[in-house]
Protein backbone atom coordinates (compact mmCIF):
# COMPACT_ATOMS: atom_id res chain seq x y z
CA UNK A 1 0.00 0.00 0.00
CA UNK A 2 1.24 3.47 -0.84
CA UNK A 3 0.53 6.64 1.14
CA UNK A 4 0.88 10.26 0.04
CA UNK A 5 1.32 13.06 2.58
CA UNK A 6 0.46 16.33 0.86
CA UNK A 7 2.69 19.31 1.55
CA UNK A 8 1.39 22.85 1.10
CA UNK A 9 3.34 26.01 1.85
CA UNK A 10 2.64 26.32 5.57
CA UNK A 11 1.95 22.65 6.32
CA UNK A 12 3.59 21.78 9.64
CA UNK A 13 2.23 18.38 10.60
CA UNK A 14 3.49 16.68 7.44
CA UNK A 15 6.53 15.14 9.16
CA UNK A 16 4.43 13.78 12.02
CA UNK A 17 1.97 12.30 9.53
CA UNK A 18 4.77 10.72 7.51
CA UNK A 19 6.38 9.14 10.57
CA UNK A 20 3.01 8.01 11.92
CA UNK A 21 2.53 5.94 8.77
CA UNK A 22 6.04 4.52 9.01
CA UNK A 23 5.68 3.72 12.72
CA UNK A 24 2.18 2.23 12.63
CA UNK A 25 1.94 0.30 9.38
CA UNK A 26 5.40 0.54 7.85
CA UNK A 27 4.04 0.92 4.34
CA UNK A 28 5.56 3.14 1.68
CA UNK A 29 4.89 6.83 2.19
CA UNK A 30 5.94 9.88 0.15
CA UNK A 31 5.70 13.62 0.60
CA UNK A 32 3.75 15.05 -2.34
CA UNK A 33 4.12 18.75 -3.12
CA UNK A 34 1.02 20.93 -3.63
CA UNK A 35 1.90 21.45 -7.30
CA UNK A 36 1.79 17.73 -8.10
CA UNK A 37 -0.61 16.74 -10.83
CA UNK A 38 -0.64 12.98 -10.53
CA UNK A 39 -1.66 10.93 -7.51
CA UNK A 40 -2.51 7.80 -9.45
CA UNK A 41 0.16 5.68 -7.76
CA UNK A 42 -1.20 6.33 -4.24
CA UNK A 43 -3.85 4.34 -2.36
CA UNK A 44 -4.31 6.77 0.53
CA UNK A 45 -3.89 10.53 0.59
CA UNK A 46 -3.24 12.24 3.90
CA UNK A 47 -3.82 15.99 4.15
CA UNK A 48 -1.88 17.18 7.20
CA UNK A 49 -2.37 20.03 9.63
CA UNK A 50 -0.69 23.40 9.56
CA UNK A 51 -1.44 26.78 8.07
CA UNK A 52 -1.64 26.20 4.33
CA UNK A 53 -0.93 29.40 2.40
CA UNK A 54 -0.81 31.21 5.73
CA UNK A 55 -4.54 30.62 6.27
CA UNK A 56 -5.04 33.92 4.43
CA UNK A 57 -8.69 34.82 3.86
CA UNK A 58 -9.92 31.64 5.63
CA UNK A 59 -8.32 28.38 6.75
CA UNK A 60 -7.94 26.13 3.72
CA UNK A 61 -9.58 28.55 1.32
CA UNK A 62 -6.58 29.05 -0.94
CA UNK A 63 -5.27 25.50 -0.65
CA UNK A 64 -8.49 24.15 -2.17
CA UNK A 65 -7.30 25.52 -5.53
CA UNK A 66 -3.78 24.04 -5.41
CA UNK A 67 -3.13 21.83 -8.46
CA UNK A 68 -2.89 18.71 -6.31
CA UNK A 69 -6.44 19.21 -5.07
CA UNK A 70 -7.85 18.36 -8.49
CA UNK A 71 -6.13 15.03 -8.10
CA UNK A 72 -7.46 14.62 -4.56
CA UNK A 73 -10.97 15.14 -5.96
CA UNK A 74 -10.38 12.47 -8.57
CA UNK A 75 -8.96 10.10 -5.97
CA UNK A 76 -11.94 10.65 -3.65
CA UNK A 77 -14.37 10.02 -6.49
CA UNK A 78 -12.47 6.87 -7.41
CA UNK A 79 -13.00 5.62 -3.86
CA UNK A 80 -9.41 6.01 -2.71
CA UNK A 81 -8.85 6.77 0.96
CA UNK A 82 -8.46 10.43 1.93
CA UNK A 83 -7.84 11.71 5.47
CA UNK A 84 -7.72 15.39 6.40
CA UNK A 85 -6.50 16.35 9.86
CA UNK A 86 -6.94 19.85 11.36
CA UNK A 87 -5.95 22.22 8.53
CA UNK A 88 -6.39 19.21 6.24
CA UNK A 89 -9.99 18.91 7.46
CA UNK A 90 -10.49 22.62 6.80
CA UNK A 91 -9.11 22.18 3.28
CA UNK A 92 -11.41 19.23 2.55
CA UNK A 93 -14.50 21.17 3.68
CA UNK A 94 -13.45 24.22 1.65
CA UNK A 95 -12.95 21.95 -1.35
CA UNK A 96 -16.46 20.57 -0.89
CA UNK A 97 -15.19 17.03 -0.36
CA UNK A 98 -16.72 17.05 3.11
CA UNK A 99 -19.82 18.94 4.31
CA UNK A 100 -19.76 21.91 6.68
CA UNK A 101 -17.21 24.53 7.63
CA UNK A 102 -14.77 25.19 10.47
CA UNK A 103 -15.08 28.53 12.23
CA UNK A 104 -13.38 30.28 15.15
CA UNK A 105 -13.48 28.43 18.48
CA UNK A 106 -16.31 29.83 20.57
CA UNK A 107 -13.80 30.54 23.36
CA UNK A 108 -11.68 32.61 20.91
CA UNK A 109 -8.72 30.69 22.34
CA UNK A 110 -6.28 28.38 20.62
CA UNK A 111 -6.87 25.00 22.27
CA UNK A 112 -3.97 22.60 22.57
CA UNK A 113 -4.53 19.58 24.84
CA UNK A 114 -5.63 15.94 24.75
CA UNK A 115 -9.36 15.31 24.35
CA UNK A 116 -11.53 12.25 24.76
CA UNK A 117 -13.37 11.22 21.62
CA UNK A 118 -16.18 8.75 21.10
CA UNK A 119 -15.80 6.68 17.96
CA UNK A 120 -19.29 7.02 16.51
CA UNK A 121 -18.79 5.28 13.20
CA UNK A 122 -16.51 2.29 12.73
CA UNK A 123 -17.70 1.80 9.16
CA UNK A 124 -15.22 4.21 7.58
CA UNK A 125 -11.91 3.29 6.00
CA UNK A 126 -10.09 4.99 8.88
CA UNK A 127 -12.02 3.67 11.88
CA UNK A 128 -12.65 -0.04 11.26
CA UNK A 129 -10.10 -1.05 13.91
CA UNK A 130 -12.01 0.67 16.72
CA UNK A 131 -14.96 -0.66 18.67
CA UNK A 132 -18.26 1.16 18.18
CA UNK A 133 -18.74 3.71 20.97
CA UNK A 134 -15.15 3.31 22.16
CA UNK A 135 -13.55 6.29 23.90
CA UNK A 136 -10.10 7.25 22.68
CA UNK A 137 -7.67 10.00 23.69
CA UNK A 138 -6.16 12.18 20.97
CA UNK A 139 -4.73 15.72 21.17
CA UNK A 140 -6.20 18.80 19.53
CA UNK A 141 -4.33 21.98 18.52
CA UNK A 142 -6.47 24.56 16.79
CA UNK A 143 -7.99 28.01 16.92
CA UNK A 144 -10.65 27.39 14.28
CA UNK A 145 -12.07 23.97 14.92
CA UNK A 146 -15.67 24.88 15.58
CA UNK A 147 -17.52 22.63 13.15
CA UNK A 148 -20.65 24.13 11.69
CA UNK A 149 -23.42 22.70 9.54
CA UNK A 150 -26.99 23.91 9.31
CA UNK A 151 -29.72 21.85 10.93
CA UNK A 152 -30.82 20.21 7.72
CA UNK A 153 -27.29 19.06 6.89
CA UNK A 154 -26.83 17.82 10.46
CA UNK A 155 -29.90 15.63 10.07
CA UNK A 156 -28.45 14.26 6.82
CA UNK A 157 -25.12 13.54 8.53
CA UNK A 158 -26.92 11.60 11.24
CA UNK A 159 -29.14 9.74 8.78
CA UNK A 160 -26.13 8.71 6.67
CA UNK A 161 -23.99 7.85 9.69
CA UNK A 162 -21.37 10.42 8.65
CA UNK A 163 -20.46 11.60 12.14
CA UNK A 164 -17.22 9.73 12.83
CA UNK A 165 -16.00 11.23 16.13
CA UNK A 166 -17.65 13.28 18.86
CA UNK A 167 -15.95 15.07 21.75
CA UNK A 168 -16.72 13.37 25.03
CA UNK A 169 -17.26 15.53 28.06
CA UNK A 170 -16.07 19.05 27.37
CA UNK A 171 -16.56 20.41 23.85
CA UNK A 172 -13.32 22.38 23.26
CA UNK A 173 -14.47 24.62 20.43
CA UNK A 174 -18.26 24.85 20.36
CA UNK A 175 -18.74 22.57 17.37
CA UNK A 176 -22.30 21.62 16.54
CA UNK A 177 -23.51 18.39 18.19
CA UNK A 178 -19.99 17.92 19.68
CA UNK A 179 -18.71 16.78 16.28
CA UNK A 180 -14.94 16.24 16.03
CA UNK A 181 -14.82 14.40 12.70
CA UNK A 182 -17.04 13.52 9.76
CA UNK A 183 -16.89 11.43 6.62
CA UNK A 184 -18.38 11.65 3.16
CA UNK A 185 -21.33 9.40 2.34
CA UNK A 186 -19.13 6.57 1.07
CA UNK A 187 -16.87 6.66 4.10
CA UNK A 188 -13.64 6.83 2.09
CA UNK A 189 -13.01 10.51 2.91
CA UNK A 190 -12.65 11.45 6.59
CA UNK A 191 -11.86 14.80 8.19
CA UNK A 192 -11.20 15.52 11.84
CA UNK A 193 -9.80 18.29 14.04
CA UNK A 194 -7.87 16.09 16.55
CA UNK A 195 -4.43 14.85 15.50
CA UNK A 196 -4.19 11.03 15.38
CA UNK A 197 -0.64 11.31 14.02
CA UNK A 198 0.36 12.83 17.37
CA UNK A 199 -1.03 9.84 19.26
CA UNK A 200 0.77 6.81 17.87
CA UNK A 201 2.99 5.88 20.84
CA UNK A 202 2.70 5.79 24.62
CA UNK A 203 5.73 8.08 24.60
CA UNK A 204 3.42 10.73 23.13
CA UNK A 205 0.86 10.18 25.87
CA UNK A 206 -1.45 7.97 23.82
CA UNK A 207 -1.32 5.52 20.97
CA UNK A 208 -5.05 5.64 20.30
CA UNK A 209 -4.47 7.35 16.96
CA UNK A 210 -2.41 4.46 15.59
CA UNK A 211 -5.46 2.41 14.71
CA UNK A 212 -6.60 5.02 12.19
CA UNK A 213 -3.59 4.00 10.13
CA UNK A 214 -4.01 0.27 10.69
CA UNK A 215 -7.69 0.72 9.80
CA UNK A 216 -6.90 2.12 6.40
CA UNK A 217 -4.41 -0.68 5.76
CA UNK A 218 -7.19 -3.15 6.70
CA UNK A 219 -9.56 -1.41 4.32
CA UNK A 220 -7.01 -1.50 1.53
CA UNK A 221 -6.23 -5.19 2.12
CA UNK A 222 -9.89 -6.05 2.13
CA UNK A 223 -10.34 -4.26 -1.15
CA UNK A 224 -7.28 -5.77 -2.78
CA UNK A 225 -7.55 -9.30 -1.47
CA UNK A 226 -6.37 -10.51 1.90
CA UNK A 227 -3.48 -12.43 0.34
CA UNK A 228 -1.58 -9.19 -0.11
CA UNK A 229 0.08 -8.55 3.17
CA UNK A 230 3.29 -8.24 5.02
Amino acid at each position, binding site marked *: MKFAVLVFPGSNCDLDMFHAVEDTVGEQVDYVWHTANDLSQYDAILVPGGFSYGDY*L*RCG*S*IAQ*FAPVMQEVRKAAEAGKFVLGVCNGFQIL*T*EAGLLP*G*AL*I*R*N*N*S*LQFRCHPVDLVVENTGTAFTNAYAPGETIRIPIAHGEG*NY*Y*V*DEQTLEQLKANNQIVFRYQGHNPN*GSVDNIAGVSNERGNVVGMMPHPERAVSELLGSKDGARMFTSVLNAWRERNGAAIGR
Partner: protein
Amino acid sequence: MKAKVYVTIKENVLDPQGNAVQGALHSLGFSEVGKVRIGKFMEVELDAADRAQAEAQLKSMCEKLLANTVVEDYRFELEG
Protein backbone atom coordinates in the same frame (compact mmCIF):
# COMPACT_ATOMS: atom_id res chain seq x y z
CA MET B 1 -13.71 49.49 -12.06
CA LYS B 2 -13.50 49.35 -8.27
CA ALA B 3 -15.59 47.15 -6.07
CA LYS B 4 -16.06 46.93 -2.34
CA VAL B 5 -16.79 43.42 -1.14
CA TYR B 6 -18.25 42.77 2.31
CA VAL B 7 -18.19 39.27 3.77
CA THR B 8 -20.05 38.66 7.03
CA ILE B 9 -20.80 35.61 9.13
CA LYS B 10 -24.40 34.47 8.65
CA GLU B 11 -26.89 35.74 11.20
CA ASN B 12 -27.56 32.26 12.59
CA VAL B 13 -23.86 31.40 12.96
CA LEU B 14 -22.01 32.30 16.14
CA ASP B 15 -19.57 35.22 15.81
CA PRO B 16 -17.24 34.90 18.81
CA GLN B 17 -15.13 37.91 17.75
CA GLY B 18 -18.21 40.08 17.50
CA ASN B 19 -19.32 38.93 20.95
CA ALA B 20 -15.90 39.74 22.42
CA VAL B 21 -15.96 43.25 20.94
CA GLN B 22 -19.51 43.76 22.17
CA GLY B 23 -18.33 42.79 25.66
CA ALA B 24 -15.39 45.20 25.42
CA LEU B 25 -17.64 48.06 24.34
CA HIS B 26 -19.97 47.35 27.24
CA SER B 27 -17.10 47.36 29.69
CA LEU B 28 -16.04 50.75 28.32
CA GLY B 29 -19.46 52.05 29.25
CA PHE B 30 -21.12 51.93 25.83
CA SER B 31 -24.13 50.19 27.24
CA GLU B 32 -26.20 51.30 24.24
CA VAL B 33 -24.40 48.76 22.05
CA GLY B 34 -26.45 45.78 20.97
CA LYS B 35 -25.14 43.01 18.78
CA VAL B 36 -21.72 43.43 17.12
CA ARG B 37 -20.80 41.41 14.05
CA ILE B 38 -17.29 41.28 12.58
CA GLY B 39 -16.70 40.63 8.91
CA LYS B 40 -14.22 41.21 6.13
CA PHE B 41 -13.95 44.16 3.81
CA MET B 42 -12.10 43.87 0.52
CA GLU B 43 -11.40 46.39 -2.22
CA VAL B 44 -11.11 44.79 -5.62
CA GLU B 45 -9.98 46.52 -8.79
CA LEU B 46 -11.18 44.80 -11.90
CA ASP B 47 -11.33 45.11 -15.63
CA ALA B 48 -14.87 44.83 -16.89
CA ALA B 49 -16.66 45.96 -20.04
CA ASP B 50 -19.71 47.15 -18.13
CA ARG B 51 -21.48 46.99 -14.81
CA ALA B 52 -23.37 43.81 -15.56
CA GLN B 53 -20.19 41.97 -16.44
CA ALA B 54 -18.45 43.28 -13.32
CA GLU B 55 -21.34 42.09 -11.17
CA ALA B 56 -21.24 38.64 -12.72
CA GLN B 57 -17.49 38.46 -12.19
CA LEU B 58 -17.77 39.55 -8.55
CA LYS B 59 -20.54 37.07 -7.84
CA SER B 60 -18.36 34.30 -9.21
CA MET B 61 -15.36 35.47 -7.14
CA CYS B 62 -17.45 35.57 -3.97
CA GLU B 63 -19.02 32.16 -4.51
CA LYS B 64 -15.71 30.50 -5.40
CA LEU B 65 -13.26 32.07 -3.01
CA LEU B 66 -14.03 35.30 -1.19
CA ALA B 67 -16.89 33.91 0.91
CA ASN B 68 -17.58 30.44 2.26
CA THR B 69 -21.31 30.36 1.68
CA VAL B 70 -21.76 27.58 4.24
CA VAL B 71 -21.14 30.11 6.99
CA GLU B 72 -20.82 33.52 5.34
CA ASP B 73 -22.96 36.02 3.43
CA TYR B 74 -21.52 38.48 0.96
CA ARG B 75 -22.49 41.68 -0.78
CA PHE B 76 -20.61 44.11 -2.96
CA GLU B 77 -20.79 47.68 -4.22
CA LEU B 78 -19.44 48.90 -7.53
CA GLU B 79 -17.88 52.33 -7.85
CA GLY B 80 -17.77 54.34 -11.01
